[in-house]
């Protein structure tokens, strides 16, 4: 940002800031990012990751500071007409944008330090393109929530898509599947961009202006508003991995280097949620009830579908990516419920549901960062993402295992974890239906409760599998047997994220004011949604929860149980050391352990109709009676991809092949195309009045 933005500044009522933190933060972030990218281009390979890491940390830190300042009440608006032709750049930040900016900044701050050590060890690419793109990607993550006009949002959104695409392609020389994942991502993200572009351009045209302030005051016909919202939901939803637009996410997120995976999965997907909240609640003024029912249903479907596939996955990072689909589904469910209540006029419940969604965004960012970074450490040490080839890491990499466990606890949504508190809030908003609500509400809310409950149960199975199969038990192959613990910087950065998770789990009420401001800014009614210090109190509902007391009770129970075991074990007993009884067949081998696939098998049977696994058995007969060899293969392809995308891809490919007949290499023909095309156009212009 230039030093003299042409915007107005406001201090908060009662607080007089010496400088506008947001302005300085955003200007600093932009400067550091551009400078960092340039320096990274020029420095030799060894120092490049350090330069990029410092730049990413600077941008992330500045974003975090600016976001926190916005939540604290500082306001900022800037119009920079010279930066972008026609409309110029408009930046503005309110508490809602500040929350998303702070989350993105914090995630990037942690990922920066991790990335330095990760790339320094020869993992993650140290190429010029990757390292120079990292600060720019971070900058777009931080700036998108500050966009104050349609054109600014679209430019930043597209920059974010392009820079993240470069980062997804990082390892394309090492693994061929990276290219395929990158192509999926490129196509899906641009289809999403087209949807957002179309929706917002139509909106801006109808409103007669480009800035969000103009859009807020626009009077749209209900039909047009629905078109705009649908386009925005498709575009932003595809970025957040909303079913059925999620197919790129479990492909692209795992293929990026681990710190980039964390940035994609913990920060970038959030911006999809941000977009829907911004357009749906803020710009369109919450609109019609039917929209939010669609959001709710899509969110519920994403949550279930995502966690079901996560439970089946045997690739550690793919599992985490599907878990992102699940968590974003839960957030969209919360947003849908909030919109539903808002249109019913139940402001308190709407604020509660929206606060639950936003808190889940924060919590998910926390534990997903920990999980992806810890998983990255495991992948770095073993060279494998396949859970069926891991195991036994708890002895070789105890710190990484402990950190992954903290993240897994959060993702499981069980009491001492941080994911629990936001899901509890969501359930609280669902189980207190407003008085005199209609039949649809009475039908939708219990189903939503069931979806959240089932999702939580499957999440427990998923992360017990990820932790139990991947990190505990005995090593299933040679690589995890020889794994060594990660260098201190990797552990320290992951540890910082884990500490944040613990803090969120123990004292979620500390976020209460931030959530209240963000929901207040969105719904237009300031309410104290969540209050209290150690005990969380909910506005309008007689429900309280004290995470610290729960934690204390759990710790006490564990200590008592451990002491009892000690007491019992002290009793003198005659003991004989004996080998494990193995049915006489020889000692058990690691191959006899549960694998990720076998652990998920019962669940797979239960959900057979949804997952529809493909089984192939090849038998080669030596003679009519003797079998020479047999091959059994079972795959669990993404059914939505199979049924929805394959036909489209097939038709597109066929159309492309058919279109080849048009271009046969004859120059005369091409000239003729131009000639007749022009004539046809002129005729059409004459005929059509």
């Amino acid at each position, binding site marked *: 940002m230039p030093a003299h933005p042409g915007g107005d500044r406001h201090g908060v009522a009662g607080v007089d800031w010496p400088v506008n933190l947001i302005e300085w933060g955003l200007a600093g972030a932009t400067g550091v990012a551009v400078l960092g990218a340039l320096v990274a281009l020029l420095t030799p390979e060894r120092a490049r990751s350090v330069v990029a890491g410092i730049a990413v940390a600077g941008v992330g830190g500045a974003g975090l500071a600016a976001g926190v300042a916005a939540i604290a009440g500082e306001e900022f608006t800037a119009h920079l007409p010279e930066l972008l032709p026609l409309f110029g750049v408009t930046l503005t930040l309110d508490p809602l944008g500040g929350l998303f900016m702070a989350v993105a900044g914090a995630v990037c701050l942690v990922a920066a330090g991790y990335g330095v050590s990760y790339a320094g060890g020869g993992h993650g690419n140290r190429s010029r393109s990757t390292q120079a793109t990292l600060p720019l990607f971070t900058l777009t993550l931080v700036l998108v929530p500050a966009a104050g006009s349609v054109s600014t949002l679209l430019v930043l959104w597209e920059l974010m898509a392009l820079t993240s695409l470069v980062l997804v392609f990082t390892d394309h020389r090492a693994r061929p599947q990276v290219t395929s994942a990158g192509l999926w991502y490129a196509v899906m993200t641009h289809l999403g961009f087209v949807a957002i572009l179309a929706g917002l351009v139509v909106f801006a045209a109808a409103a007669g202006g480009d800035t969000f302030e103009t859009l807020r005051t626009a009077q749209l016909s209900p039909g047009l508003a629905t078109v705009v919202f649908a386009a925005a939901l498709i575009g932003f939803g595809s970025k957040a991995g909303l079913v059925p637009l999620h197919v790129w996410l479990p492909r692209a997120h795992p293929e990026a280097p681990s710190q980039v995976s964390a940035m994609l999965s913990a920060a970038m997907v959030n911006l999809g949620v941000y977009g829907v909240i911004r357009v749906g609640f803020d710009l369109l003024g919450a609109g019609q009830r039917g929209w939010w029912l669609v959001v709710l249903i899509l969110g519920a479907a994403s949550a279930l579908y995502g966690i079901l596939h996560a439970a089946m996955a045997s690739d550690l990072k793919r599992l985490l990516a599907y878990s992102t689909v699940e968590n974003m589904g839960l957030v969209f469910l919360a947003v849908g419920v909030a919109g539903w209540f808002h249109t019913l006029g139940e402001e308190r419940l709407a604020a509660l549901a929206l606060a639950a969604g936003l808190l889940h965004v924060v919590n998910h960012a926390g534990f997903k960062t920990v999980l992806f970074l810890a998983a990255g450490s495991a992948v770095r040490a073993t060279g494998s993402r396949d859970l069926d080839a891991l195991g036994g890491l708890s002895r070789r990499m105890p710190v990484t295992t402990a950190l992954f466990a903290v993240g897994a606890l959060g993702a499981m949504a069980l009491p001492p974890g941080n994911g629990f508190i936001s899901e509890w809030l969501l359930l609280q908003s669902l189980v207190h239906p407003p008085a005199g609500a209609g039949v649809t509400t009475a039908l939708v809310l219990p189903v939503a409760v069931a979806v959240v409950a089932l999702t939580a149960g499957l999440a427990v199975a998923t992360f017990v599998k990820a932790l139990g199969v991947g990190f505990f038990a005995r090593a299933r192959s040679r690589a995890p047997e020889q794994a060594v613990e990660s260098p201190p910087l990797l552990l320290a950065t992951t540890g910082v994220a884990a500490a944040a998770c613990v803090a969120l789990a123990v004292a979620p009420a500390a976020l209460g004011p931030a959530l209240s401001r963000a929901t207040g800014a969105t719904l237009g009614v300031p309410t104290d949604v969540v209050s209290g210090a150690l005990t969380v109190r909910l506005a309008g509902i007689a429900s309280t929860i004290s995470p610290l007391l729960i934690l204390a009770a759990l710790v006490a129970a564990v200590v008592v149980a451990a002491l009892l075991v000690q007491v019992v074990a002290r009793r003198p007993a005659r003991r*004989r050391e*004996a*080998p494990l*009884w*193995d*049915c*006489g*067949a020889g000692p058990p081998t690691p191959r006899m352990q549960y694998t990720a696939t076998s652990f998920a098998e019962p669940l797979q049977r239960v959900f057979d109709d949804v997952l529809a696994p493909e089984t192939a058995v090849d038998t080669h007969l030596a003679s009519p009676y003797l079998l020479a060899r047999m091959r059994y293969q079972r795959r669990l392809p993404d059914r939505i991809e199979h049924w929805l995308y394959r036909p489209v891809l097939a038709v597109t490919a066929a159309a492309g092949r058919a279109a080849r007949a048009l271009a046969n290499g004859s120059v005369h023909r091409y000239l003729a195309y131009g000639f007749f095309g022009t004539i046809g156009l002129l005729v059409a212009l004459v005929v059509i009045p």
Partner: protein
Amino acid sequence: MIKLLNKIRRTGRVAEPAPPRPPLSCPKAERLAGSVQLRHVDAGSCNGCEVEIGSVFGPVYDAERYGARLVASPRHADAVLVTGPVTRNLAEPLRRTVAALPEPRIVVAVGDCAINCGEFKDAYGVVGAVEDVVPVDVKVPGCPPTPEAIVTALRGLTGR
């Protein structure tokens, strides 16, 4: 009503009075105090002995009323019943099974084959008699031994 209850109580109790109690057949069995859990290992039998063991624990001979009982793991057992000559494939598993027994390890060789290889002496797949592989405490001769003989040997272990 009382008559009916008595009838129900008596129904199924068709066992004859037990023969006189035999003396303990193995000094180790004293520690077992009347209850012997048995693991059966077929080390290469023709299944003749198995048929007899089956009837030992059937309703007619009912060895369980003397305190002997078949279990599914050597970890739960006090003694093993070994039948048949020990074949090459089963020699090592037999050793491990006996090693997995808790003290006192009692081995009962049931049938002529288990005692001296019987019909299968010098067969190409046979390692030897049970005694050649693990120490044997009690022997029950016969090809196959009668259920009465097996029951008598087991009562020698339970002492009841």
